């Protein structure tokens, strides 16, 4: 009894270290070497892997990224366009959907299950199916268009459409996340303010915009921030559907880094790109988080 109570008093005093410590240490251990190694390599050129030592090149990689590399610039633009567009669409559609199904009806459970599906399915497998659907000759979509009397499209092979379609698939996949989080938030809300507003003569739209939305906004923002961080790193679906093509129009930064490391074997340069990418994501997410705090 004595030892146990001494131990528990000890843990009580050092709650944070004992409860959180192990997780931090575990994550730290797994992440430490990769992160340090990547930063180290970003100042080197490394051909040959473990059989040859990396060659120190100082800031050369970084200089090249920012002055010479056109594909980098393209990748940044594609990343920002795709992320901003998809997350915006997911948010609007997700919130709308949540509001729409936020009511009592018979098949509620089934509907929620169906809505969950895109988010749970394996992205790699689903991307292959989408790729087949978009196939100009073998896919269902062009067939549908033709039956409706419309001209067939090149879909993913059309450089003007490709990035948009990737965004569509991404939105299809992640709108459920926003919708379900918002739905849960709506369910938890008190009804009184909304009822009071309707007594005051506000119509459904006004009630939603001026009463419900502000109350549920903090929840939506958290979901959006989480989604944003993940969206910047979208990888599986792009790799499977287009691998950055046609040309480089769907090449986001993550895909570019992947190809640089594994196709071109430029490990030093890709490490530098990774550092830049990390800084970019960090800046974006912290600025979004501080936005949330200031709006409270």
């Amino acid at each position, binding site marked *: 009894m004595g030892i146990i*109570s001494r131990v*528990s*008093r000890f*843990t*009580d005093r050092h*709650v944070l270290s*004992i*409860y*959180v410590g*192990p*997780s931090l240490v*575990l*994550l730290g251990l*797994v*992440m430490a070497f*990769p*992160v340090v*190694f990547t930063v180290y390599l970003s100042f080197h050129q490394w051909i040959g892997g*473990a059989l040859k030592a990396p060659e120190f090149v100082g800031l050369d990689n970084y200089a090249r990224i920012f002055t010479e590399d056109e594909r980098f610039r393209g990748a940044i633009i594609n990343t920002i366009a795709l992320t901003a567009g998809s997350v915006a669409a997911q948010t609007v559609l997700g919130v709308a959907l949540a509001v*729409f199904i936020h009511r009592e*009806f018979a098949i509620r*459970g089934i*509907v*929620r*299950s169906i*809505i*969950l*599906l*895109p988010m749970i*399915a*394996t992205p*790699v497998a689903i991307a292959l*199916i989408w790729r*087949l659907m978009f196939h100009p*000759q*073998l*896919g*269902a979509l062009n*067939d549908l268009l033709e039956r409706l009397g419309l001209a067939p499209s090149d879909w993913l092979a059309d450089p003007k459409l490709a990035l948009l379609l990737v965004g569509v698939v991404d939105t*299809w996949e992640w709108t459920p*996340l926003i919708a*379900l*989080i918002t739905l*849960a*938030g709506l*369910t*938890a809300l008190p009804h009184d303010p909304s009822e009071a507003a309707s007594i005051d003569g506000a119509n459904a739209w006004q009630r939603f915009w001026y009463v419900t939305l502000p109350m549920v906004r*903090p929840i939506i923002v*958290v979901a959006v921030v989480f989604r944003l961080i993940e969206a910047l*790193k979208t*990888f599986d679906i792009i790799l499977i559907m287009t691998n950055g093509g046609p040309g480089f129009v769907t090449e986001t930064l*993550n895909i570019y*880094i992947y190809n640089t*490391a594994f196709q071109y074997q430029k*490990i030093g340069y*890709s490490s530098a790109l*990774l550092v830049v*990418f*990390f800084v970019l*994501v960090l800046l974006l997410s912290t600025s979004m988080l501080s936005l949330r705090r200031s709006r409270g």
Partner: protein
Amino acid sequence: MAKQITLRTKKKIVRKALRATGFYALLGAILVPFAFVFWYMISTSLKPAEALISSTFRWTFEPTLDNYRQVFEQTEFSSFMFNSLLVGFGSVAMSLVFGLPAAFAIARFNAPRLGVIILSSRVTPGITFLIPLFIIFSRIGWIDTYQALIVAHLLITLPMVIWLMIGFFEDVPQEMIDSARVDGASITVTFLQIVLPMTKGGIAASAILAFIFSWNHFMFSVVLAGRHTRTLPVAVFEFMAYGQINWGAIAAAATVMTLPVIVIALFVQRHIVEGLAGGAVKG
């Protein structure tokens, strides 16, 4: 008088019915894009080879289980599934053991910054880890082992469990904890005997979501898994051989891969919604 009421009531009923129909119609229209892709996947998986080599899309065909047979015969699919299950359970179990106390402490002992630090591990792109982890694991002889994959997947599941559970732990009413403490219980006892049982639903939700993300993860598996530990997402590529792209088999593999998580989802969708809400409400 009686006649008028009936008429008005009738009109009300009709209007209500119309609105309900409208609702269900719109609902159906919205659900079509969600479900269409899955219908497409399943129907492709049932198509015989000729229906797929035809140069136009065929809506009707003779269904066959041939593709599924190929999937199970030509690949070690059951082995892949076992591996995915093992790695998933392993990393989720470890995430719970490490993550539940961590989330609890962050939630109730005023350490939101630690929460942000842990979430920031999601900021690092996965590629960062591929070569360094491979180098470490090959040095300690962990290539093609389950422990290597479980540790790698921890990078995904642990932050997620913590992020989601922080909200649930914040929701626990302070009075419950206070009364336990007043009775002389230590924090650990309170945690184990009071808080955990109260948040059972949230724990289930977090565990399920973390498992799903681990199940679907692709990148680490290609690099860190060997012949014996390869997980499901890699399996679908076995059918894109030089001879042809076997869309039927790919669809069958995709269906079999997605089926378990869909089944889980159908049964626990309520818990998942709670899980997402719990993480978001207090964030």
